[in-house]
Protein backbone atom coordinates (compact mmCIF):
# COMPACT_ATOMS: atom_id res chain seq x y z
CA UNK A 1 0.00 0.00 0.00
CA UNK A 2 1.33 3.42 -0.97
CA UNK A 3 1.06 6.17 1.59
CA UNK A 4 -1.09 9.18 0.93
CA UNK A 5 0.97 12.01 -0.55
CA UNK A 6 -0.93 14.52 1.56
CA UNK A 7 0.28 13.31 4.98
CA UNK A 8 3.75 13.89 6.38
CA UNK A 9 5.61 11.60 8.74
CA UNK A 10 6.92 13.07 11.96
CA UNK A 11 10.52 12.21 12.70
CA UNK A 12 11.02 13.66 16.18
CA UNK A 13 9.91 16.45 18.48
CA UNK A 14 11.79 19.57 19.58
CA UNK A 15 9.82 20.49 22.67
CA UNK A 16 6.19 20.63 21.50
CA UNK A 17 7.12 21.25 17.84
CA UNK A 18 6.90 18.19 15.61
CA UNK A 19 9.71 18.01 13.06
CA UNK A 20 8.57 16.19 9.95
CA UNK A 21 10.75 14.32 7.51
CA UNK A 22 10.14 17.05 4.91
CA UNK A 23 11.44 19.77 7.21
CA UNK A 24 14.53 17.75 8.11
CA UNK A 25 15.36 17.14 4.43
CA UNK A 26 14.76 20.82 3.66
CA UNK A 27 17.14 21.87 6.42
CA UNK A 28 19.73 19.42 5.16
CA UNK A 29 19.46 20.80 1.62
CA UNK A 30 19.63 24.37 2.91
CA UNK A 31 22.73 23.60 4.96
CA UNK A 32 24.35 21.83 2.02
CA UNK A 33 23.60 24.67 -0.41
CA UNK A 34 24.72 27.34 2.05
CA UNK A 35 27.96 25.47 2.81
CA UNK A 36 28.65 24.89 -0.89
CA UNK A 37 28.02 28.57 -1.70
CA UNK A 38 30.23 29.69 1.18
CA UNK A 39 33.09 27.41 0.17
CA UNK A 40 32.75 28.33 -3.51
CA UNK A 41 32.68 32.10 -3.00
CA UNK A 42 35.25 32.26 -0.20
CA UNK A 43 38.20 33.13 -2.41
CA UNK A 44 36.93 35.12 -5.37
CA UNK A 45 39.70 36.71 -7.41
CA UNK A 46 39.90 38.94 -10.45
CA UNK A 47 41.60 36.23 -12.49
CA UNK A 48 39.10 33.42 -11.97
CA UNK A 49 40.03 29.88 -11.08
CA UNK A 50 38.22 26.92 -12.59
CA UNK A 51 35.47 26.84 -9.94
CA UNK A 52 34.92 30.56 -10.19
CA UNK A 53 34.56 30.38 -13.96
CA UNK A 54 31.84 27.76 -13.62
CA UNK A 55 30.08 29.87 -10.99
CA UNK A 56 30.27 32.97 -13.17
CA UNK A 57 28.87 30.96 -16.05
CA UNK A 58 25.88 29.85 -13.95
CA UNK A 59 25.18 33.32 -12.57
CA UNK A 60 25.58 34.81 -16.04
CA UNK A 61 23.14 32.28 -17.50
CA UNK A 62 20.54 33.16 -14.84
CA UNK A 63 21.07 36.88 -15.50
CA UNK A 64 20.67 36.36 -19.26
CA UNK A 65 17.44 34.42 -18.76
CA UNK A 66 15.99 37.13 -16.54
CA UNK A 67 17.04 39.87 -18.95
CA UNK A 68 15.58 38.01 -21.92
CA UNK A 69 12.31 37.34 -20.09
CA UNK A 70 11.40 40.73 -18.63
CA UNK A 71 13.81 43.11 -20.42
CA UNK A 72 14.90 45.05 -17.35
CA UNK A 73 18.24 45.06 -15.51
CA UNK A 74 18.39 41.68 -13.73
CA UNK A 75 20.43 42.90 -10.74
CA UNK A 76 17.84 42.90 -7.93
CA UNK A 77 16.18 39.64 -8.99
CA UNK A 78 19.17 37.35 -9.46
CA UNK A 79 19.64 36.36 -5.78
CA UNK A 80 16.02 35.38 -5.24
CA UNK A 81 15.36 33.70 -8.57
CA UNK A 82 18.72 31.95 -8.54
CA UNK A 83 18.19 30.65 -5.03
CA UNK A 84 14.66 29.48 -5.85
CA UNK A 85 15.92 27.66 -8.94
CA UNK A 86 18.87 26.01 -7.19
CA UNK A 87 16.83 25.00 -4.16
CA UNK A 88 13.98 23.51 -6.18
CA UNK A 89 16.44 21.73 -8.46
CA UNK A 90 18.34 20.14 -5.58
CA UNK A 91 15.07 19.35 -3.80
CA UNK A 92 13.67 17.63 -6.89
CA UNK A 93 16.86 15.69 -7.49
CA UNK A 94 17.22 14.68 -3.84
CA UNK A 95 14.99 11.72 -4.65
CA UNK A 96 18.12 10.13 -6.14
CA UNK A 97 19.47 9.54 -2.63
CA UNK A 98 17.87 6.33 -1.35
CA UNK A 99 15.39 6.82 1.47
CA UNK A 100 14.92 10.53 0.88
CA UNK A 101 11.66 11.85 -0.44
CA UNK A 102 11.97 15.22 -2.21
CA UNK A 103 10.52 17.99 -0.01
CA UNK A 104 8.79 19.49 -3.04
CA UNK A 105 6.64 16.36 -3.27
CA UNK A 106 4.75 17.67 -0.22
CA UNK A 107 2.41 20.59 -0.66
CA UNK A 108 3.65 22.45 2.43
CA UNK A 109 7.10 23.11 0.93
CA UNK A 110 5.56 24.21 -2.35
CA UNK A 111 3.14 26.47 -0.51
CA UNK A 112 6.06 28.12 1.30
CA UNK A 113 7.91 28.66 -2.00
CA UNK A 114 4.74 30.02 -3.61
CA UNK A 115 4.23 32.38 -0.69
CA UNK A 116 7.78 33.70 -1.16
CA UNK A 117 6.99 34.42 -4.82
CA UNK A 118 3.63 35.99 -3.90
CA UNK A 119 5.28 38.40 -1.46
CA UNK A 120 8.14 39.08 -3.87
CA UNK A 121 5.68 40.12 -6.60
CA UNK A 122 4.14 42.68 -4.24
CA UNK A 123 7.51 43.85 -2.88
CA UNK A 124 9.19 44.34 -6.26
CA UNK A 125 6.02 45.86 -7.72
CA UNK A 126 5.78 48.46 -4.94
CA UNK A 127 9.54 49.10 -5.09
CA UNK A 128 9.47 49.77 -8.83
CA UNK A 129 6.28 51.83 -9.05
CA UNK A 130 5.42 53.03 -5.57
CA UNK A 131 2.28 51.95 -3.72
CA UNK A 132 -0.10 54.01 -5.86
CA UNK A 133 1.52 52.90 -9.08
CA UNK A 134 1.38 49.26 -8.02
CA UNK A 135 -2.29 49.46 -7.05
CA UNK A 136 -2.98 51.18 -10.35
CA UNK A 137 -1.75 48.11 -12.24
CA UNK A 138 -4.82 46.25 -10.97
CA UNK A 139 -7.06 48.61 -12.98
CA UNK A 140 -4.83 48.37 -15.99
CA UNK A 141 -6.88 47.88 -19.15
CA UNK A 142 -9.95 49.39 -17.50
CA UNK A 143 -11.52 49.71 -14.05
CA UNK A 144 -13.84 46.77 -14.83
CA UNK A 145 -10.87 44.41 -14.66
CA UNK A 146 -10.12 45.03 -10.96
CA UNK A 147 -11.86 41.96 -9.51
CA UNK A 148 -10.40 39.76 -12.23
CA UNK A 149 -6.87 41.05 -11.62
CA UNK A 150 -7.21 40.59 -7.85
CA UNK A 151 -8.38 37.01 -8.35
CA UNK A 152 -5.57 36.45 -10.85
CA UNK A 153 -2.99 37.50 -8.27
CA UNK A 154 -4.06 34.63 -6.05
CA UNK A 155 -4.81 32.01 -8.67
CA UNK A 156 -1.46 32.34 -10.39
CA UNK A 157 0.35 31.76 -7.10
CA UNK A 158 -1.97 28.85 -6.39
CA UNK A 159 -1.32 27.33 -9.81
CA UNK A 160 2.42 27.79 -9.24
CA UNK A 161 2.12 25.78 -6.01
CA UNK A 162 -0.11 23.07 -7.42
CA UNK A 163 1.97 22.67 -10.58
CA UNK A 164 5.19 21.98 -8.70
CA UNK A 165 3.43 19.74 -6.19
CA UNK A 166 1.53 17.77 -8.79
CA UNK A 167 4.48 17.15 -11.06
CA UNK A 168 7.02 16.11 -8.43
CA UNK A 169 4.55 14.17 -6.32
CA UNK A 170 3.21 12.25 -9.32
CA UNK A 171 6.77 11.40 -10.41
CA UNK A 172 7.55 10.02 -6.94
CA UNK A 173 4.21 8.22 -6.91
CA UNK A 174 4.73 6.55 -10.29
CA UNK A 175 8.18 5.32 -9.24
CA UNK A 176 6.64 3.95 -6.04
CA UNK A 177 4.00 2.06 -7.99
CA UNK A 178 6.55 0.65 -10.46
CA UNK A 179 8.82 -0.37 -7.57
CA UNK A 180 6.00 -2.31 -5.95
CA UNK A 181 5.38 -4.14 -9.26
CA UNK A 182 8.94 -4.80 -10.47
CA UNK A 183 11.89 -3.96 -8.28
CA UNK A 184 15.09 -4.45 -10.25
CA UNK A 185 16.24 -2.17 -13.11
CA UNK A 186 12.70 -1.48 -14.35
CA UNK A 187 12.28 1.89 -12.53
CA UNK A 188 15.56 3.29 -13.89
CA UNK A 189 14.13 4.84 -17.13
CA UNK A 190 11.35 6.36 -15.05
CA UNK A 191 13.90 7.76 -12.62
CA UNK A 192 15.69 9.36 -15.58
CA UNK A 193 12.35 10.87 -16.59
CA UNK A 194 11.94 12.02 -13.01
CA UNK A 195 15.26 13.90 -13.27
CA UNK A 196 14.11 15.57 -16.48
CA UNK A 197 10.76 16.54 -14.94
CA UNK A 198 12.53 17.89 -11.86
CA UNK A 199 14.87 20.08 -13.89
CA UNK A 200 12.06 21.36 -16.13
CA UNK A 201 9.80 22.13 -13.19
CA UNK A 202 12.57 24.02 -11.37
CA UNK A 203 13.19 26.02 -14.56
CA UNK A 204 9.48 26.68 -15.08
CA UNK A 205 8.98 27.74 -11.46
CA UNK A 206 11.84 30.23 -11.74
CA UNK A 207 10.73 31.53 -15.15
CA UNK A 208 7.13 31.97 -14.03
CA UNK A 209 8.25 33.69 -10.84
CA UNK A 210 10.27 36.18 -12.87
CA UNK A 211 7.44 36.62 -15.39
CA UNK A 212 4.99 37.40 -12.58
CA UNK A 213 7.45 39.77 -10.91
CA UNK A 214 8.15 41.38 -14.27
CA UNK A 215 4.44 41.95 -14.92
CA UNK A 216 4.35 44.20 -11.86
CA UNK A 217 7.68 45.86 -12.55
CA UNK A 218 8.01 46.61 -16.25
CA UNK A 219 5.77 48.80 -18.35
CA UNK A 220 2.08 47.97 -18.38
CA UNK A 221 1.86 47.96 -22.15
CA UNK A 222 4.14 44.94 -22.25
CA UNK A 223 1.67 42.43 -20.81
CA UNK A 224 1.97 39.26 -22.85
CA UNK A 225 -0.28 36.26 -22.94
CA UNK A 226 2.16 34.18 -20.87
CA UNK A 227 1.42 36.24 -17.80
CA UNK A 228 -2.13 35.05 -17.45
CA UNK A 229 -3.09 31.76 -15.94
Amino acid at each position, binding site marked *: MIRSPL*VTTTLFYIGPVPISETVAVTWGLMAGLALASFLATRSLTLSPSRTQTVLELVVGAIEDQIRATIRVAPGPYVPMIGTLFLFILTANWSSLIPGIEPPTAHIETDAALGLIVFLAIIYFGIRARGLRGYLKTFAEPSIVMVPLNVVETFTRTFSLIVRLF*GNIMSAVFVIGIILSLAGLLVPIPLMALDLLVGAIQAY*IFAVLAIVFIGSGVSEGSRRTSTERT
Partner: protein
Amino acid sequence: MNVLEIVSIAAAAVAVSFGAIGPALAEGRAVAAAMDAIARQPEAAATLSRTLFVGLAMIETMAIYCLVVALLVLFANPFIH
Protein backbone atom coordinates in the same frame (compact mmCIF):
# COMPACT_ATOMS: atom_id res chain seq x y z
CA MET B 1 -16.06 -1.32 0.89
CA ASN B 2 -19.18 0.76 0.78
CA VAL B 3 -20.82 2.51 -2.15
CA LEU B 4 -19.19 5.85 -1.35
CA GLU B 5 -15.67 4.44 -1.70
CA ILE B 6 -16.47 2.69 -4.97
CA VAL B 7 -17.98 5.89 -6.37
CA SER B 8 -14.93 7.85 -5.20
CA ILE B 9 -12.50 5.56 -7.01
CA ALA B 10 -14.60 5.71 -10.18
CA ALA B 11 -14.79 9.49 -9.87
CA ALA B 12 -11.00 9.77 -9.52
CA ALA B 13 -10.50 7.63 -12.62
CA VAL B 14 -13.01 9.69 -14.59
CA ALA B 15 -11.46 12.96 -13.41
CA VAL B 16 -7.97 12.01 -14.54
CA SER B 17 -8.96 10.33 -17.79
CA PHE B 18 -11.27 13.05 -19.05
CA GLY B 19 -9.16 15.83 -17.57
CA ALA B 20 -6.16 14.62 -19.55
CA ILE B 21 -7.86 14.81 -22.94
CA GLY B 22 -8.09 18.57 -23.23
CA PRO B 23 -4.54 19.41 -22.12
CA ALA B 24 -3.15 16.61 -24.32
CA LEU B 25 -4.79 18.05 -27.43
CA ALA B 26 -3.80 21.57 -26.45
CA GLU B 27 -0.15 20.64 -25.81
CA GLY B 28 -0.04 18.84 -29.15
CA ARG B 29 -1.27 21.94 -30.94
CA ALA B 30 1.14 24.19 -29.04
CA VAL B 31 4.16 22.00 -29.81
CA ALA B 32 3.11 21.68 -33.46
CA ALA B 33 2.82 25.45 -33.78
CA ALA B 34 6.21 25.95 -32.11
CA MET B 35 7.84 23.37 -34.41
CA ASP B 36 6.35 25.17 -37.38
CA ALA B 37 7.70 28.50 -36.15
CA ILE B 38 11.17 27.07 -35.46
CA ALA B 39 11.24 25.53 -38.94
CA ARG B 40 10.45 28.91 -40.46
CA GLN B 41 12.77 30.89 -38.23
CA PRO B 42 15.53 28.74 -36.72
CA GLU B 43 17.33 31.80 -35.31
CA ALA B 44 14.38 32.50 -32.99
CA ALA B 45 14.53 28.99 -31.51
CA ALA B 46 15.76 30.13 -28.08
CA THR B 47 12.94 32.60 -27.50
CA LEU B 48 10.38 30.22 -28.97
CA SER B 49 11.39 27.27 -26.81
CA ARG B 50 11.38 29.36 -23.64
CA THR B 51 7.89 30.66 -24.41
CA LEU B 52 6.83 27.14 -25.37
CA PHE B 53 8.00 25.74 -22.03
CA VAL B 54 6.13 28.40 -20.09
CA GLY B 55 3.02 27.90 -22.21
CA LEU B 56 3.17 24.13 -21.84
CA ALA B 57 3.45 24.55 -18.08
CA MET B 58 0.33 26.70 -18.14
CA ILE B 59 -1.61 24.14 -20.19
CA GLU B 60 -0.33 21.27 -18.10
CA THR B 61 -1.68 22.92 -14.98
CA MET B 62 -5.20 21.92 -16.03
CA ALA B 63 -4.23 18.24 -16.08
CA ILE B 64 -2.40 18.66 -12.78
CA TYR B 65 -5.55 20.17 -11.24
CA CYS B 66 -7.45 17.04 -12.25
CA LEU B 67 -4.74 14.87 -10.74
CA VAL B 68 -4.86 16.80 -7.47
CA VAL B 69 -8.65 16.56 -7.37
CA ALA B 70 -8.37 12.80 -7.94
CA LEU B 71 -5.84 12.51 -5.11
CA LEU B 72 -8.07 14.53 -2.81
CA VAL B 73 -10.96 12.24 -3.64
CA LEU B 74 -8.82 9.15 -2.98
CA PHE B 75 -6.80 10.18 0.07
CA ALA B 76 -8.47 13.16 1.71
CA ASN B 77 -12.13 12.52 0.98
CA PRO B 78 -14.20 14.41 3.56
CA PHE B 79 -17.10 11.96 3.26
CA ILE B 80 -15.12 8.83 4.06
CA HIS B 81 -13.87 8.41 7.62
